[in-house]
Each structure stands twice: as structure tokens, then as C-alpha cells.
């Protein structure tokens, strides 16, 4: 039976379709937006409500072996009544939905961990989701590139994406994790990897080319080298130059925007980075904003885990995986009175406030690395409400603010449409999800309706209604229904001949059964 619903009379903010607050109906039929409905279609009265597309998080960490190790590591942070930093699968779907988010992509899953991520996705309700396959320090890519066989590398990547039912290529600290795992703390873009005839520059440019040549809906998703280190803005700018017109998405850019001397205290060079991003129409980024409070560092850039452990003495997990990058995990806390943490907070806001193009710099906290996604509402308020922002800036250590663009006064206030861009329309477009992030005919009927409230954080924290595929999944924060949502994946074509070489590599050097790595679509009903 056809399911219909008319959202009547709301104020619609749908920037992808040029709708900026017009009062109009949104019509839904069988889970999709349609232009019209019969007059007798059921009605949800949206009069006085703000109507936005369901939000899309294109860089988060919500499923897979690394996330689950973090849950296992931190039982003390999970108390009755308190929201955990790393929620369970059941909580993740519900908490995102309560915020108006209906799509989320895990930004880092290894080939060996792909099946685990899919198992968790099965238990993550409501959300549509997918993950990016971590490459850049793995033998599949490194060996082919080292021997100059870029075609072979392309076929290997295509095989890996299809086998793991992943959505995009994620390159994490190209070559640097390999170097760290082989005893070298830091590696420059033009340094050879230990024992290999290969440089980070070669890996990142080749991976960008491969992602482009495979016609993937999302370009290479790049975690640049030197994350978190003072002075790393130089590496980031050099990386941008190395990409030389190639398409790429730069992950958690805030963590790569620091001045200062290596080993010293970072400063913010976010204005330079924002300008460079603005000049590069082929590039996009998510901000990776730090929010004060509890966080958990979890990364395939394992050097970072060791660095945070050494800085803090906190507990630390580091897991090696054969032929691939592993992961590092450290429970963390961002403190307002910490000079370094305040600089990180400032750098993120500077990026957002100086970004000339909201379609190319979108919201993220790199959950849970910069803090939990549950803090998005307060982050939105920081962007929309200068008075609130100034009150928060006044709480920071003076030394952190010295010489920063933020201290000199950045008057920009995001409009509601700009918020709709950085949380909905832009991430959907950057992901190549044509049915997400907008409310035009044919779009998925993922919709969030808000009661206007001068307290923007309160408004965004509790939508009046959230609809997923045309059905109400949250009403004033009360969840209804337990739909699982779909998992997005790609399966690019490749030369089957590559399987012979990959099979030999796995048989000779791995404990993994090459054939068993491939996830059969029927195993998880992956569409």
C-alpha cells in the first residue's frame, strides 16, 4: 500500500534547491519526496516549524573493531543516566536520529575489520550508513606502487572496495603509519618509507588518481600527515600543493592547521589553511572541531595514539593488523583552560568562520576524536550566535588567543541556510548521495522539523520531529520504530587478474583467507 504524508505549512530550508525559508508543503510518498500528493493524503501539521533535510555526518567513527575496542576500554565512562563518549550501536542510531541526523559514514575501517563493521551496522538502527576503507599504509597499495604498477594498484583498490563493501577510499597519513610501525617516528612527504622505494607524496597522489579513475562517488578522503603536531600546517599546505588539482576531501582539517615548532606548543595557522582551501575548488574538508569535555582518540594514524599516551600517561591500545594499518586508542579530555586545547578550539572556529565556501568545509567533530557528535547543537550555536561565541572565547586562556584571528574579532554569523549546507546539503553532495541532503522530488524523505527557539543549541538538540524514509522516527526525542537503514557501498569494476597476485600475497604472508575476505552481498543484505 502506498504510504503518503504531507508536511503542511512549514518554513522550508533546502539550500540545494534554492529554498531559503519559504512556507510550503513537503510531500512524501513511499519514503521519497514527491512534487504533489492527492488532497486526501495524511497530514503532519508543520505550521511554525523549520523544515530541513535530515542531516548527514560524513566523518565519524561509529562501528568496527577500533570503535568496539574503545567501548571495551572505557567502562568507567559509561554510567547510568550519562551519555557515553563511545555509544553502543543501539545508542548511536537513536542519538543521531534524535539530533536530526539520518545518515552517517564511518571514516576508517580496515579490510580485515570490514565484516565487523557490517555486523555492527546491522545493529545500528535508523541511520543510513557506510564506511571508508583505510588505505595508504597497506601492502595492497604499497607493493603495486613501489613496482610502478599503478594499474595493478587501481585494480587492487577496486577489488578491496568491492570485497569489503566499502563506500570510499580513505588514505590515513600516507606512508607515515607504516614508518611508525617500522620504528620511525616521523616521515616527510619526500622521505622514503623505511626499507622501501616509496614516498608519502607518491602514495597520496596515486591514491587520489585511483579514486578518481574508479569513478567513485566520493573522492579520496585524506587524513594528512603529521596530525596534531605543532607546525603541521606546513605539511598540510605542502600536501595541498602535491595534490595539484586532484580531487580530495581533507578530513578533520583543524587537526592539521597548527603553527609553531615541532615538539613545541602549537599556534593556529587556520587562516592560511582556510585561504588555501578556498583557492582550491577541487578540494573539500570537514573541520574536526574540538569541543571541551570528554573525547576518545581512535585512529589508524597510530603514532598519534602513542603521542597522546606519552603526553598524558593515559591508558593506550595499539593493535597491529597484518598487511594493513592497525589502530591506536586513548581516552581523552579537552579542557578549556589548557592552552593547547584552547588553540585547537580556536583553529577549528577560525576555519569555519573564514571558510569562503560552506559547500566545501562541513561540520564534524571527528566523533569521538574531537568530542562527541552530541555537541553539534552547541557548535552550531557558536557559528550562528556571535554573542554566545564571544562569551565562550572570554573563558579561554589569554595566551591561547594572542595574535589569533578569532581574538581580533570575526563577526561572521552563519545563517540557518548556511547551517543547512554544512550539516546536510554539502556533506550529501560531497558524498555523491543524490537522494540525501535536500528535499527536492526524488530525494529520500529524511526530514528534521524544529520548533524555532532563540537558544539555537536547544533547538538543534531536540527536533520536534525526525522522519527517516518518510516515517517519524523521533518525536520530541522519543524514538519510534527500529528500522535499520541501508548500508551504502560501491563495487567498481577491476581486472580479475589482480586476484591471482593478491591471493598469492595473502597466502604467503597473511593468516587471512583471501576468498573469505570477500563479503557476499547476501551476508548482510548489502544493497
Amino acid at each position, binding site marked *: 500500500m502506498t504510504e503518503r504524508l504531507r508536511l503542511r505549512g512549514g518554513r522550508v530550508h533546502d539550500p540545494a534547491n534554492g529554498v531559503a525559508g519559504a512556507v510550503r508543503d513537503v510531500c512524501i510518498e513511499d519514503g521519497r519526496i514527491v512534487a504533489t500528493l492527492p488532497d486526501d493524503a495524511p497530514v503532519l501539521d508543520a505550521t511554525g516549524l523549520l523544515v530541513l533535510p535530515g542531516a548527514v555526518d560524513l566523518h565519524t567513527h561509529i*562501528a568496527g*573493531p577500533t*570503535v*568496539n575496542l574503545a*567501548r*571495551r*576500554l*572505557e*567502562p*568507567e565512562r*559509561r554510567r*547510568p*543516566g550519562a551519555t*557515553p563518549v563511545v*555509544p*553502543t*550501536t*543501539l545508542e548511536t542510531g537513536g542519538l543521531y536520529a534524535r539530533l536530526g541526523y539520518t545518515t552517517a559514514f564511518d571514516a576508517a575501517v580496515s579490510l*580485515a*575489520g570490514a*565484516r*565487523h563493521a557490517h*555486523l*555492527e551496522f546491522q*545493529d545500528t538502527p535508523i541511520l543510513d550508513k557506510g564506511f571508508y576503507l583505510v588505505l595508504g599504509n597497506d601492502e595492497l597499495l604499497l607493493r603495486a606502487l613501489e613496482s610502478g604498477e599503478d594499474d595493478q594498484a587501481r585494480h587492487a583498490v577496486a577489488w578491496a572496495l568491492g570485497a569489503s563493501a566499502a563506500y570510499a577510499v580513505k588514505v590515513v597519513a600516507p606512508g607515515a603509519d607504516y614508518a611508525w*610501525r617500522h*620504528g620511525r617516528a616521523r616521515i616527510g612527504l619526500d622521505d622514503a618509507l623505511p626499507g622501501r622505494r616509496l614516498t608519502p607524496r607518491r602514495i597520496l597522489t596515486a591514491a587520489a588518481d585511483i579514486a578518481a579513475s574508479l569513478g567513485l562517488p566520493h573522492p579520496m578522503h585524506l587524513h594528512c600527515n603529521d596530525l596534531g603536531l605543532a607546525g603541521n600546517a606546513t605539511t598540510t599546505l605542502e600536501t595541498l600543493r602535491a595534490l595539484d588539482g586532484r580531487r580530495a576531501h581533507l578530513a578533520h582539517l583543524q587537526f592539521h592547521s597548527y603553527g609553531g615548532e615541532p615538539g613545541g606548543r602549537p599556534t593556529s595557522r587556520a587562516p592560511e589553511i582556510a585561504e588555501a582551501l578556498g583557492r582550491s575548488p577541487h578540494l573539500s574538508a570537514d573541520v574536526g572541531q574540538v569541543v571541551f569535555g570528554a573525547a576518545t582518540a581512535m585512529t589508524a594514524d597510530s603514532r598519534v595514539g602513542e603521542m597522546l*599516551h606519552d603526553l598524558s600517561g593515559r*591508558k*593506550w*591500545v*595499539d*593493535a*597491529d*593488523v*597484518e*598487511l594493513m594499518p592497525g589502530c591506536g*586508542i*586513548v581516552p581523552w579530555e579537552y579542557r578549556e583552560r589548557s592552552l593547547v586545547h584552547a588553540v585547537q578550539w580556536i583553529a577549528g572556529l577560525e576555519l569555519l568562520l573564514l571558510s569562503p565556501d560552506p559547500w566545501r568545509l562541513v561540520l564534524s567533530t571527528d566523533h569521538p576524536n574531537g568530542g562527541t557528535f552530541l555537541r553539534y547543537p552547541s557548535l552550531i550555536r557558536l557559528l550562528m550566535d556571535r554573542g554566545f561565541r564571544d562569551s565562550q572565547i572570554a573563558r579561554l586562556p589569554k595566551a591561547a588567543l594572542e595574535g589569533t584571528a578569532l581574538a581580533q574579532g570575526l563577526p561572521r554569523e552563519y545563517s540557518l541556510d548556511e547551517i543547512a549546507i554544512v550539516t546536510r546539503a554539502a556533506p550529501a553532495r560531497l558524498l555523491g548521495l543524490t537522494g540525501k541532503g535536500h528535499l527536492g522530488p526524488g530525494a529520500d524523505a529524511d526530514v528534521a522539523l524544529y520548533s524555532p527557539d532563540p537558544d539555537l543549541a536547544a533547538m538543534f538538540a531536540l527536533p520536534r520531529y525526525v522522519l527517516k524514509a518518510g516515517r517519524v522516527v523521533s518525536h520530541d526525542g522519543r524514538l519510534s520504530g527500529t528500522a535499520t537503514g541501508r548500508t551504502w557501498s560501491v563495487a567498481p569494476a577491476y581486472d580479475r587478474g589482480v586476484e591471482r597476485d593478491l591471493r598469492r600475497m595473502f597466502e604467503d*604472508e*597473511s*593468516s*587471512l*583467507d583471501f576468498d*573469505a575476505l570477500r*563479503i*557476499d552481498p547476501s*551476508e548482510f543484505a548489502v544493497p
Partner: protein
Amino acid sequence: MSARAFGRDVSLDEAIAAGAALLTRARLPLVYGLVESTVEAQREAVALARRLAGALDTAASAAHAGALAAFQAAGALTTSLGEMRRRADLVLFWGLDPDGVEPGFVARYAPPRAGRVRIAVDVGPAAGPPGVEERLRIPPEREVECLLALRAFLRGRRVEPAAAAPLGLPLDALRGLARRLSASAYGIIVSDGEPPSERRDPLCAVTLNALPRQARERSRLRSLLVRRGNSVGADNVLTWLTGFPAAIRFGPDGARFDPSGSSAEALLASRRADAALVVGALPERYLSAQALASLNALPTVRVGGTPAGQVFISTAPSDETTGHVFRMDGVPLHRQGRAGSLPSEADVLARLCLAVGQATERA
């Protein structure tokens, strides 16, 4: 025989109804076992325990408690089976022959090879694998002291021979072992993640877990815990669904983790659990005799495993069931089962969950 209830053969439907009634009547039902079960059965067990507002624990929980506490206190530096096979130039087997857990383990993951040394430390009768290049024996009653001495040597500290001598510690051998570990390019310490009850000193687990961090500036040391069946899968499933890997108590405000109060051992020993659902086989090595006796005295529903309890439902063997299982290093696998006449554990648990829900609604 496919199902029995209160001493007579019954249909599956009758057994489900009887089992649901038994569990629903209890004040604190314990859902327990799961170490041989597929992921699919494990997630159904979580849903059932949640619906019953009961307690949930895995059979391996008591044996693994020390290692889990060590992990949660300090983290861990770990590796995969493939890195052992591919990369390790030193493999240290501490008080364990993994072939006894998984036949062919050593040949598959740590075969002899040029440039690799394999060292067995025999902890009394808990011996490492035969055929290794080097072997060291330590007195089982001094395992903790030997581990502490090894840790001290790895950190470059001295251990006073005068203090160690009365304890009978093989200090020279342990110092040499520390030297070998520190000099390795990639060394792996393989130990039992689920030791028998006589070797569950928490300090052993903490010290074993700490060893790789001691030589971090000189060597890349890693640890690998040998686990059994699909206990790693159970840990994982419970964790992603509840936030905790074991010893869970469901209440109105969600799941709580209380390793000392809500573990199966504690609930059975204190007789607070007043009914149990046992899923799959219960390997004898896991539960203490006292807890086992308490369990046997409880009204019990058994799904799979050995026929016992007030209600028993026979299921297809887990290793013949289609579903997912985890290797001991955390890599999940998909297993294709065989078609058979018996229901799977997952099917039975899902039906029990449904029946419990209906019974609860009626009440």
C-alpha cells in the same frame, strides 16, 4: 530428541513456552554461556537478557576477568595472527601450548624459520609447545614473581639476587629472556587469555599485559591472548550492544557492568540468580565447582549443549550453523553451515525472546 520439559519429550513450541514461563517467573534470571555460539545467537541472547531485565555473562568471563581488568586499566599493545606468521622474529609462549587450543596453531602461525626464535616458558605443567628453539622452566608457584622480575629486567632495572634466591627464581634465565625480547625487531608474547582457575592471579594478567610497554624504546613487543571457541565474538557482541563485554546486569536505566557483583560466578555463588538460561556447551574449565553446583541446583533452560535442566532444546551444533564467529585476534569470519533438521541457537533464542515478550505483556 529435540526438546524436553520437566522430564518429558515435548514439541519445540511447548519447550519454548515452558522455557519462557520459567524465565519470566524468575526475579533474577541469568543468561549464560555463549562461548561456542555464533554472533547471530549472541545478539539474540543479549536481546533476551535485556527483555528479562536479567543478568548476562559469558562462560569465559571468569577465566578472562584478569586479562580484561588489565586491559581496562592500562590498554594493550596487541597484534594479529598474521603479523606473528609474517613478521615476528621472536615468539614467546608463556605457559601455554596453543596447539592444545587450536590444533596446528604453531605450524600455521609460528612455524620455524631463519631469523626467528621461538621460546617456551613452561609454568609447571602449563608447558609451551614442543619443538621450539629454546625453553625455560619456572616454578608454577612463583609465576608472578618471575613475571615481575622479567618486567624489571625489560625496564633495565636490577633485581637483587639475594631477594630472589630464596624464591628459587631463575634470574639469569629471565635476564637473558629480557635481553632477547629487547633485541627483537618484532617480538610477540603469547599467553593464555582464559587460564585455568589455579593460574588466575590478577597480578599475572596485569604484568603479562604490561610487558610489551617496557621495552618500547628498544623493540616492538606485542601481546597475543589465546582465546577459545567464539569467546572473542561474545565479548565483541556484548560490547557493541551494551557497552560491556561481560558481567552485565540489565535494569530500568540500562546495562550495568559489575565484574565483582554481576558475574555468573558471583551471582551463582551468592545464590542471587534464581533461574538460568544456558546457551551452548559449558566447558568445565570455565566455571568453579561451587558455581557449577549452584547452577545445577537452579531452574534452568538449556539451549544446545548437553541435555540437562528443566527445559532443554536441542540445536544444531554451532560449528555447523551458518553465521559469524571471531578469531582470537578479533578478525570475524563468515561460516557456511549445513542444512539440518534442528533449529539454530539463534532461532531458538529469538523465539524465546518473543515468547518472553508476550508473557511479560500479558503480565
